């Protein structure tokens, strides 16, 4: 039937619409002109024109993390595709579902060093969950549907679909999303029941239980966070979250002991070290969390729930591995717990909590705001106060000290409201990510907590904010240093501050204005609250340049390669740092 024949570009658009896509982040070029022409002629897909392809991927990540949907990117061949590599790697490390459509030269030119040709599938193979080169129009619709399935199911991740130009202009027929199971790729979501029973046994008999939950709980959807909260209530166990897991348990929950890891709270890290049963839910025993592996939680039995078998027993050997989606597994654990009317040993639990309160009382995030300069922690504490009670706030960050302080001082009551680059630690992530969040939630308050160095890495996206009237707020903690680098140089390299000073910074107020945004500046602690209030009240995009103490360091800190109980609490404890920083540790990042 001739009328059923469509061009590749039309098939692509229809497949995207059928996949529930409403917005693409992209940038045009020669190889994708046919696709852009099809986009021009329809009105179901909205296209957001970014200013650099890397920004498109981070925007898609922000969109995805804040909605639970797949973020979609469209870029041209060659440089368009290679500019996406950082974002794709970021999405892979943080398990973010993204489908990235890249243009490619015509099939007969592939391999000829044609204009703007790059081996996109070759380059992106190690930084995607999976990738495809569509060589024939007959494979197009099926491949697009499969790409979405792979991106969002199991452990989510980025998928690249490389689209040669001739395939986009060829005629073919459309195929609706298939219900059929994939031939080989079918991730297991239900956990093994006998293992779940073992887990309940361990938890119920624990004297010092700990729940350690991570990004996988966010990946599993809001229901998983609710179930995690239920389990914390049922067991009474202290619960810590990774950087990626913040929001999975409300920050105000009485069982929450703060973030774990290198810059996590004393109580969370001491719980990790001293617990006798650890329930790890959707977290991957990352080196920022475990510290020295052979000293990691030496006395505990470990239960690990993860949808990806390769996360289990990778760094840390566990006693009860449970492969499955944490929403399903948590539900089953709760069922078994209730059916057995299980209860933790109340006395043991009470004395465990006494110990924890002792650590908590030491207030490991403590700092002193005094004098004329704004402490970065104070700026965030005040920001947090202004955001209290609102449930329409989304926070993204760049990478560095400000990111750690944001994790420590901002409260996340719900999942999907916190976007940060954890695994790759990509400076330049926060602004485009906030942009993607704002596109998905036009009326929300989207704030990028930034450092003055990181923000310059994708500052061009201010123009995108202007074009689409996206009122993102950029809250720069300006310490005039690559603070995190300076901190390591101070601690571990004898204060030799090699290339970490941010000389020749722009005037951020004028910079904001030149992009049609509002620029605000504050250096007086007394005026901080007014400026934050003004930022929130401003209907357009804002850059706030907060001049903060340039010498402040992030505490507590567990140096790389040290154990949890070798945690440094404050500047007075430099000796602990020195003792903990072994030669081996210095070789670690």
């Amino acid at each position, binding site marked *: 039937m001739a009328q059923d024949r469509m061009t590749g570009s039309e098939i692509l658009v229809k497949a995207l619409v059928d996949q529930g896509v409403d917005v693409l982040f992209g940038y045009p070029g020669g190889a994708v002109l046919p696709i852009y022409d099809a986009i021009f002629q329809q009105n179901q897909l909205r296209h957001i024109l970014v200013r650099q392809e890397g920004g498109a991927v981070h925007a898609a990540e922000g969109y995805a993390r804040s909605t639970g949907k797949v973020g979609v990117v469209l870029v041209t061949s060659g440089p368009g595709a290679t500019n996406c590599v950082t974002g794709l790697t970021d999405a892979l490390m943080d398990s973010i579902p993204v489908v990235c459509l890249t243009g490619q030269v015509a099939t007969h030119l592939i391999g000829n060093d044609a204009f703007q040709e790059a081996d996109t599938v070759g380059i992106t193979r190690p930084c995607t969950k999976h990738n495809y080169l569509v060589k024939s129009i007959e494979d197009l619709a099926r491949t697009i549907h499969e790409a979405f399935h792979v991106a969002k199911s199991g452990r989510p991740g980025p998928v690249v679909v490389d689209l040669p130009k001739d395939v986009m202009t060829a005629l073919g027929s459309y195929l609706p999303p298939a219900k059929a199971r994939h031939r080989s790729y079918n991730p297991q979501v239900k956990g093994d029941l006998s293992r779940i029973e073992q887990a309940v046994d361990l938890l119920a008999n624990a004297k010092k239980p700990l729940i350690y939950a991570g990004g996988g709980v966010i990946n599993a959807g809001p229901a998983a966070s609710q179930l995690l909260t239920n389990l914390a209530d049922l067991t009474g166990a202290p619960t810590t979250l990774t950087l990626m897991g913040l929001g999975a348990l409300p920050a105000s929950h009485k069982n929450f002991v703060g973030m774990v890891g290198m810059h996590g709270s004393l109580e969370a890290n001491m719980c990790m070290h001293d617990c006798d049963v650890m329930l790890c839910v959707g977290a991957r025993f990352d080196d920022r969390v475990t510290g020295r592996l052979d000293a990691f939680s030496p006395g505990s039995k470990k239960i690990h729930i993860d949808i990806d078998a*390769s996360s289990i027993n990778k760094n840390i050997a566990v006693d009860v591995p449970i492969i499955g989606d944490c929403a399903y597994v948590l539900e089953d654990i709760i069922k078994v717990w209730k059916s057995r009317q299980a209860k933790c040993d109340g006395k043991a639990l009470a004395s465990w909590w006494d110990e924890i309160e002792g650590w908590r009382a030491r207030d490991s995030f403590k700092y002193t705001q005094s004098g004329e300069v704004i402490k970065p922690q104070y700026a965030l504490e005040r920001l947090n106060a202004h955001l209290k009670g609102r449930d329409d706030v989304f926070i993204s960050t760049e990478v560095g000290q400000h990111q750690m302080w944001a994790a420590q001082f901002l409260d996340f009551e719900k999942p999907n409201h916190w976007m940060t680059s954890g695994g790759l630690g990509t400076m330049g992530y926060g602004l485009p990510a906030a942009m993607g969040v704002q596109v998905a939630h036009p009326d929300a308050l989207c704030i990028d907590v930034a450092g003055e160095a990181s923000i310059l890495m994708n500052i061009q996206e201010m123009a995108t904010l202007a074009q689409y009237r996206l009122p993102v707020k950029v809250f720069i903690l300006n310490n005039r240093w690559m603070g995190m680098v300076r901190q390591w140089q101070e601690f571990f390299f004898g204060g030799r501050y090699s290339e970490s000073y941010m000389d020749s910074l722009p005037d951020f107020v004028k910079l904001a204005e030149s992009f049609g945004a509002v620029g605000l500046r504050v250096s007086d602690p007394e005026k901080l609250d007014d400026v934050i209030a003004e930022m929130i009240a401003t209907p357009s995009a804002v850059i706030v340049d907060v001049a903060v103490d340039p010498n402040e360091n992030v505490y507590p800190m567990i140096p790389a390669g040290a154990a949890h109980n070798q945690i440094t609490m404050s500047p007075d404890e430099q000796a602990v740092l020195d003792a903990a920083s072994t030669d081996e540790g210095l070789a670690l990042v």
Partner: protein
Amino acid sequence: MIKSEQRKATIAVLVDNEPGVLARVIGLFSGRGYNIDSLTVSEVDAAAHLSRITIVTSGTEMVITQIKAQLQRLVPVHRTSDLTVEGPYVERELALVKVSSSGETRVEALRIADIFRARAVDSTINSFVFEITGSLEKISAFVDLMRPLGLVDVSRTGVVAISRGPDPI
């Protein structure tokens, strides 16, 4: 707790026979720093587009478990099996071994070939090409014996393996 002895593992992997699948497997090994002692691949079911990859690797128990899990996570992978631990299996390799010599050494080469059940598949006045099949160790032993007897070249297929008994993999 963490067993750190190294062991060998022969892993069979059933994959979709699609472009790039071998690159994915090899990229996984090089990217994550796993050893490949031997790797073979060939289509085994044309109608179902299935290929079988046999990999001989070595590592600690934890690393080998990781390798299996990482392989299983590749989208075109249907099944992986660590034959070394999952019951008895047969492992074979084929090699073509070229030896050039004369006189007593030539006779000796032929005699040893006979003991190893290697066949001469090519011969000239001063050379043989032997075909030998067997375990990796057997072939290595044969090649070592041929070295002083005029070994010129060796071409080995790499290991193929299959489980014993009626069940697949």
